[in-house]
């Protein structure tokens, strides 16, 4: 028996189960000399999942040494990552390591692990179940496989199966006399073969012929494995039908149990994602309302104070005060109008359909809207139209709103004298174009750049509600585009938005 290599613990070290070589351990891993040295371990110490002939091996291990599914075990993942390409998944009899069947099985387990890894990242439940179903079918050598899940209040299992290039819905009643229903109700694996050749013995459920009718085929062997949630309640059944070898083996049962676990994990993850999204939405709504409330209060503050000043000034016929207060009130009324427009534009549900519109004429139009304001503030406002953007297809209203926001910001950032804003368009890829707005204002430091797309962030509380750039970002995101800010303190700012053309628009 070798000593554990530095940094490569055996399972008993990692798990601190108390069943190591120094104990009077009944654990077969410790005494499994056939596995000596595998993955750098002592006896079966770094192959514990395979000892006993199965991946999990729970039944043959000492109680407490291992529970649950090895695919979610941190020790399993530690060994796998430490060993890299040399990682050995199975306890193998010498001489059979290169057999074709073995390689196929290893590939299948690798795919099972890939599915499990996939559950860790963003995923689509429907697609995950389709992937699992296909892997289960391939691995067991079945003609078809279906994952059926309990849905709604009706006592029935629903699933989908590919059939002649299409997806067919399958619904099986939760009748415990049938194989599928029995598996779900009694939480037991049902493994049937020679289905039409003989009667099922007493106590063994019969195959439900409606399955064949729905699948337009004839089943001779059938495996139904329950899918349980973490509380061990049945949430569905994974099935395989018509094994190529004529029957489903105990190994097939074991693999299907693992796939059932993966389906259950996927369903749980879907629930978690849905709950998280709901919480995030609620949080975003709360934040939006609080931010809006703050903006509106500031506007209302100016309107109230302005109203007070105007009323008093009118009584004393002080027209100078009336004018001064009215200018401020007027600005805040405009701000209120802008705020309501921003809220509408920010609503992600509001989406105008794309039109085939010339990009340069649209931007020229927006620039034209600001010419008078720029002139009044002695700001040079220039437009540099790109030569090859006229065939660009894009969301007309979205780009319009982006440019209004960006040019408004740029004009506000300009210095009091010799301000300059330059707007440009340019094609940057076969299906991508860029819009840019540059100003010679005070520029932004890294902190400001990082915050400008936050809702209600504003550097100009006198005018802005802080919805403008989030609106731009939202519109650009809808076009799978991106926004770049090129700015340094004292060196002005250039905002560039890159928009993917909507090639579906004609």
């Amino acid at each position: 028996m070798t000593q554990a290599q530095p940094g490569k613990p055996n399972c008993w070290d990692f798990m601190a189960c108390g069943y190591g070589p120094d104990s009077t351990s009944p654990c077969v891993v410790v005494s499994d000399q056939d596995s000596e040295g595998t993955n750098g371990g002592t006896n079966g110490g770094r192959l514990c999942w395979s000892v006993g002939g199965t991946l999990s091996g729970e039944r043959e291990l000492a109680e407490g040494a291992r529970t649950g599914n090895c695919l979610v075990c941190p020790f399993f993942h530690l060994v796998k990552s430490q060993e890299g390409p040399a990682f050995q998944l199975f306890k193998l009899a010498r001489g059979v390591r290169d057999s074709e069947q073995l390689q196929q099985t290893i590939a299948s387990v690798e795919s099972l692990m890939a599915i499990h890894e996939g559950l860790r990242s963003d995923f689509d439940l429907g697609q995950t179940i389709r992937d699992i179903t296909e892997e289960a079918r391939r691995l067991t050598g079945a003609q078809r496989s279906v994952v059926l899940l309990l849905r709604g209040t009706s006592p029935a299992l629903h699933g989908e199966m590919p059939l002649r290039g299409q997806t067919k819905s399958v619904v099986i009643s939760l009748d415990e006399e049938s194989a599928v229903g029995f598996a779900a109700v009694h939480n037991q694996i049902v493994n049937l073969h020679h289905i039409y050749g003989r009667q099922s013995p007493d106590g063994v459920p019969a195959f439900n012929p409606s399955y064949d009718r729905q699948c337009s085929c004839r089943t001779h062997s059938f495996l139904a494995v329950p899918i349980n949630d973490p509380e061990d309640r049945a949430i569905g059944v994974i099935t395989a039908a018509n094994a190529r070898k004529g029957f489903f083996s105990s190994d097939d049962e074991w693999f299907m149990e693992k796939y059932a676990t993966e389906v259950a994990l996927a369903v749980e993850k879907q629930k978690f994602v849905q709950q998280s999204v709901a919480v995030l939405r609620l949080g975003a709504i709360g934040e939006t309302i609080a931010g809006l409330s703050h903006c509106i209060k500031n506007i209302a503050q100016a309107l109230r104070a302005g109203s007070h000043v105007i009323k008093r000034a009118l009584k004393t016929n002080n027209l100078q005060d009336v004018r001064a207060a009215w200018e401020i009130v007027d600005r805040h009324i405009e701000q209120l109008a802008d705020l309501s427009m921003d809220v509408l534009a920010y609503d992600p549900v509001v989406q105008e359909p794309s039109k085939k519109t010339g990009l340069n004429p649209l931007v020229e139009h927006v620039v034209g809207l600001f010419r008078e304001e720029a002139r009044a503030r002695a700001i040079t406002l220039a437009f540099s139209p790109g030569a090859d953007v006229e065939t660009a297809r894009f969301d007309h209203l979205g780009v319009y709103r982006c440019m209004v926001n960006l040019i408004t910001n740029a004009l506000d950032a300009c210095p009091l004298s010799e301000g300059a804003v330059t707007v440009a368009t340019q094609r940057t890829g076969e299906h991508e174009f860029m819009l840019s707005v540059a100003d010679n204002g005070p520029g932004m430091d890294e902190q400001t750049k990082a915050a400008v797309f936050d809702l209600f962030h504003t550097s100009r509380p006198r005018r802005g509600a802080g919805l403008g750039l989030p609106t731009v970002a939202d519109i650009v995101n809808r076009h799978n585009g991106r926004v770049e800010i090129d700015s340094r303190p004292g060196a002005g700012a250039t905002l560039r938005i890159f928009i993917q053309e909507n090639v579906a628009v004609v």
Partner: protein
Amino acid sequence: MGPKAKIMVVEDNLDEAKLIKMVLEGEGYEAVCAFNGKDALEKVQSDRPDLIVLDVMMPEMDGFAFCSELRSSPENEHLPVVLLTAVAKHIQDSKYPLNGVLRADAQEYLEKPIRAEELLETISRLLS
């Protein structure tokens, strides 16, 4: 102290500062404006106001930080401060919560949009 008292308005929003100044001047107060906490600390020394109307949310130095600095000087220990904020009173876990009066050691805490009459009554009471 009568209506000739000097009041400092500390508010980063120029329009709001100007309007509050006009409201105060309409009642005969002398009003001076400062646009952030740092600016206000300097002007407190030079202008010696009798009362401060203070916005809470300001860049660089917010109203709470300003109050804390202000109170660290013994001569300003009892200078009346009226806090103004647009944060809703029921939002407890905000950076600028309801207990702002206690935190900032101010005399009053008014929620925007304040009524001019309410502000004037509060100022009058604190100065009397």
